[in-house]
């Protein structure tokens, strides 16, 4: 019997294919599953196997021809019993093929005609339990796989597209509209005016791009305010100088100012919960843990490993954790776990000589603190009502904060808290006291 060979559906929204090379010709004997022709789609090139054993009787589609899925491309003669005799169904206009519903034509429970009018056609809208659907989580950036794919394909910035979906979600239609209107055009690397000969164009690394996105996000969403305070760390400096070596000997890690600052910051965060919070979906979320991210400069850019549950940890503890974290960060061994869950960020910009800095908050946190350079300065001290000038080691603390959550007073209170702890350290300071 004649078996019609059709182009199979390969799915995945591929609707047509090009006939590549015919591997068999008319009159050739073919075995079931033996490749007979090459088909080329925009996704993949593949060989079509023979559906049965027999002889090719007719080649219908030529090499190079584009045919839709399901089209007959050849015929073969086979003696195998076919499962189905698929004759073409006659052409009936679609609406007639579906048919119409005849109201009142009821079939009774045991088969016969049933004219029970108690089965009212407009029964009251009874809430049946529909299978539980997807519960909207609010307007967190929820991008569906389709939206991400479309945006990436057209180079669109999803943050800039207005979302009309549930909870402010950017939907397929929103992206399509943005593509259509062209308002959100791909940021062109070069417009003729902004480039001059000799300019070097560097394609940013993935990390750099991520940092860039983060910075844009943070500065566009969070209203940043800034406050600074001076800290007299003379006692701290003395103490550290004296205890540097025994500390390292005992704990195996260097005693830098970082664990001490972290210690002071964690303590202050505990007393000022609004600094350890986040503005989410119109609400202030006070975080339950104090996880302080510590900015580390690496070859790849800034990374921020997070010290979890920092409050209550001792300085040696923090020093060990920090040492390990920073080591991992500098050797590109940081895990996702290391970098996530942060509720506050600490950045030691002073190590590079900075005396004042306005850091950008690490979204979606509420604040970021920089510890600036320790500089010896002539400072006026008042003792017993008498003013005098002394040379003291001074360090500035700068706090950038989310002014939706935190006002100047709270910012100052926090900074004061950190300052007090740091200034309380002198030669008599006991690590375990």
């Amino acid at each position: 019997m004649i078996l019609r060979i059709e182009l199979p559906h390969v799915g995945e929204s591929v609707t047509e294919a090009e006939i590549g090379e015919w591997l068999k010709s008319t009159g050739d004997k073919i075995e079931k599953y033996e490749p007979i022709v090459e088909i080329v789609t925009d996704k993949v090139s593949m060989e079509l196997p023979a559906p049965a054993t027999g002889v090719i009787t007719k080649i219908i589609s030529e090499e190079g021809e584009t045919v839709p899925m399901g089209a007959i491309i050849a015929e073969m003669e086979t003696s195998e019993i076919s499962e189905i005799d698929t004759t073409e169904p006659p052409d009936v206009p679609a609406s007639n093929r579906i048919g119409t519903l005849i109201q009142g034509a009821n079939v009774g429970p045991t088969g016969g005609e049933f004219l029970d009018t108690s089965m009212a056609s407009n029964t009251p809208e009874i809430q049946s339990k529909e299978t539980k659907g997807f519960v909207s989580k609010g307007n967190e950036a929820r991008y569906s796989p389709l939206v991400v794919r479309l945006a990436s394909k057209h180079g669109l910035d999803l943050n800039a597209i207005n979302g009309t979906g549930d909870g402010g979600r950017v939907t397929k239609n929103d992206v399509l509209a943005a593509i259509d209107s062209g308002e959100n055009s791909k940021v062109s690397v070069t417009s003729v005016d902004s480039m001059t000969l000799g300019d070097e164009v560097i394609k940013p690394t993935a990390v750099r791009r991520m940092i860039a996105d983060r910075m844009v996000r943070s500065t566009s969403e969070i209203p940043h305010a800034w406050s600074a305070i001076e800290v007299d760390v003379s006692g701290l400096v003395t103490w550290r100088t004296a205890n540097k070596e025994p500390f390292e000997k005992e704990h195996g890690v260097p005693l830098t100012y970082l664990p001490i600052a972290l210690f002071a910051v964690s303590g202050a965060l505990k007393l000022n919960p609004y600094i350890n919070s986040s503005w989410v979906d119109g609400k202030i979320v006070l975080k339950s843990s104090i996880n302080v991210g510590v900015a580390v400069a690496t070859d790849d850019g800034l990374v921020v490993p997070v010290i979890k549950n920092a409050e209550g940890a001792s300085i040696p503890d923090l020093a060990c954790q920090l040492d390990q974290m920073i080591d991992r960060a500098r050797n590109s061994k940081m895990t996702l776990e290391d970098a996530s869950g942060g509720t506050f960020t600490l950045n030691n910009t002073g190590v590079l000589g900075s005396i004042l800095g306005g850091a950008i908050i690490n979204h979606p946190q509420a604040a970021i603190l920089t510890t600036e350079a320790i500089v010896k300065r002539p400072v006026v001290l008042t003792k017993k009502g008498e003013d005098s000038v002394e040379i003291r080691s001074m360090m500035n603390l700068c706090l950038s904060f989310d002014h939706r959550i935190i006002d100047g007073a709270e910012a100052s209170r926090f900074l004061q808290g950190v300052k007090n702890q740091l200034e309380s350290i002198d030669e008599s300071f006991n690590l375990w006291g």
Partner: protein
Amino acid sequence: MPELTLIEAIRETMRDEMRRDESIILIGEDVANRGGVFLATDGFVEEFGEDRVIDTPLAESLICGVALGAAVNGMRPIAEIQFADFVWPAINQLVGEASKVRYGTNGVKNAPLTIRIPYGGEVRGGLYHSQSIEVLFSHTPGLTVVAPSTPFDARGLLASAIRANDPVIVLEHKRTYRLVKGDVPTDDYTLPLGRAEIKRLGTDMTIVSYGLMLHYALQAAESAAAEGIDVEVLDLRTLRPIDTATIVESVSKTGKALIVQEDTPAVSISSEVAAIIAEHCFFDLDGPVMRLAPPEIPAMPFSPLQEAAFMPSPEKILSAIRKLAVL
């Protein structure tokens, strides 16, 4: 072209097939002397004789077992289970035996058996005349399961089922027997087993459905169109094997899917369709795959109010469409 109800299309198909092929016999309860409780075989015993149209005792296992035996021995039987609710005693013959004939004999034997089963509710049938039974058979390799929703499809699919050389179960929703009337050509035609059909083209979401629900989905789609939501409606037509390609093509195009079925949802056809969509359309989805089905209740209620609360309706489908459209 004649306009037939679904049950008329079934009847005409069987009549034409039995005239065409003498090896086709009918076996079931009340198929001969009463002409079938739904009149599906009305006049058949008069035309084809008692040797070819056989009344059985009230024994489903016997109906399927005898039909299977006949099938393996050169006949082409159509077995009728009077109501899907009664098929359970026949499960061993169908799932335990019929599905395994070709495989178990390494192709030496095959069973060209067709089993017609009226199913479904909204007929005030209560516990024992309303059941949806498709899941168990749709899970079984070696069986093919079709569920035509329209008279046109019923003729084409039943013809293919009868001519198939392996067991095919034809599920006919009894509510659609007289409810749906449509064009059915008189010439001989078949429709491919394992092929779904898009009954309504759309762009915003795809509803996947079958049986009575197909018609309610179409009604809901029309209402949705008036609200600016363009719904594509896909009729599965075959429940085993499910037409993955057509489903994937449709959902990839629209980006959203709503599966509407009359059977309770846990471990059902909708579960399989959802898995197919999740696997093949992940990067084309703009929203979660949703299902609309009755509550998990052991039987269709008998009281009209409760039955209405149980069954999906065009209104409930429209409500689900609206929800999915903005999700």
